[in-house]
């Protein structure tokens, strides 16, 4: 069922994905790259935001049980 809003499972999956895509994987540095800077910092912010949104949804889901 698609409601247009991310489901709880989608939100959790996004957290798992962000943990990998923004925090792991090969990082190249040096002259050939144009830009990679700043991702580490925004990762922390994005994750906190997603996690708090996820927590809110989870609490809501429990109340509706």
């Amino acid at each position, binding site marked *: 069922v698609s409601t247009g809003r991310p489901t709880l499972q989608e939100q*959790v*999956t*996004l*957290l*798992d*994905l*962000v*943990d*990998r*895509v*923004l*925090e*792991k*994987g*090969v*990082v*190249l*540095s*040096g002259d*050939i*790259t*144009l*830009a*990679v800077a*700043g*991702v580490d910092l*925004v990762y922390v*912010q*994005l*994750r906190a*935001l*997603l*996690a*708090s949104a*996820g*927590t809110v949804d*989870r*609490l809501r889901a*429990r109340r509706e049980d």
Partner: protein
Amino acid sequence: VTATPQRATEAASAAYVYGVVPAGALPGNVLADVEGVAPGVAVELVEHEGLAALVSRVPLAEFGEEPLAERLHDPAWLAQRARAHGRVLQQALAAGSVVPFRFGALFAGEDDVRALLAARGADLSEELRRLEGRVELGVKGFAPGTLAGRVRASLPEAQQLEQELAGLAPGRRYLLEKQLDGLVARETAAARLRIAEESHAALAAAAVAAVANPPRDETGAGDEEMFLNGAYLVGTGARDAFEARLEAVGARFEELGVRYELTGPWPPYNFVESARP
């Protein structure tokens, strides 16, 4: 910006790299329907000496240094682009081994991508060989809020403190209650750590390589607390055995209300060197 019109055109896009696969490993149609990190952009292969980089040409209006710095702070933008990055690599993983790059690897053009493949070719090829036929699986473990109650009930020292409490005046009682709470909190944390270490060791023994990432306590359901956030590199032929091991671990701690979540298969994000000079 004072670039000449010609330079401005050349510089209007950059080459975004998702990761590297062995050349010839991806049939052309695998990437045909995948959208890149910018709306409507295709994913192409840039090949050099047996290696192929997964690349999209992205507009500098979005990925240039200044616009990028701004957009990185837009959570909706970043979440959407991170998803796209993950989708491309997932597609590549379905066809074979892949060395995933972290989000945000931008090069001036395809020649620079080839220069990268030339400069790092030996490392990347070796990494691809090591990762061939292997995938990353994620396992998260959650302990229920009731764990503290169980620990309290199982500690003789806590039982003794509780008995002493019963006959005390309020002032003295308060101090002893604090002492009891501290004891239960410490022992609960220690119990969670023991379960985490035992779980991780059992799972790691069924994997080629293993990483225990810091638990993210905000992702549990309700009053649950995450105690395990592991990543495991597993041969595709050994996935059933790994899942059987996870079931055995789950059964071992089931009576404590502990539960595990399996995710993946993922490209091996946790099993590539995260930084290269």
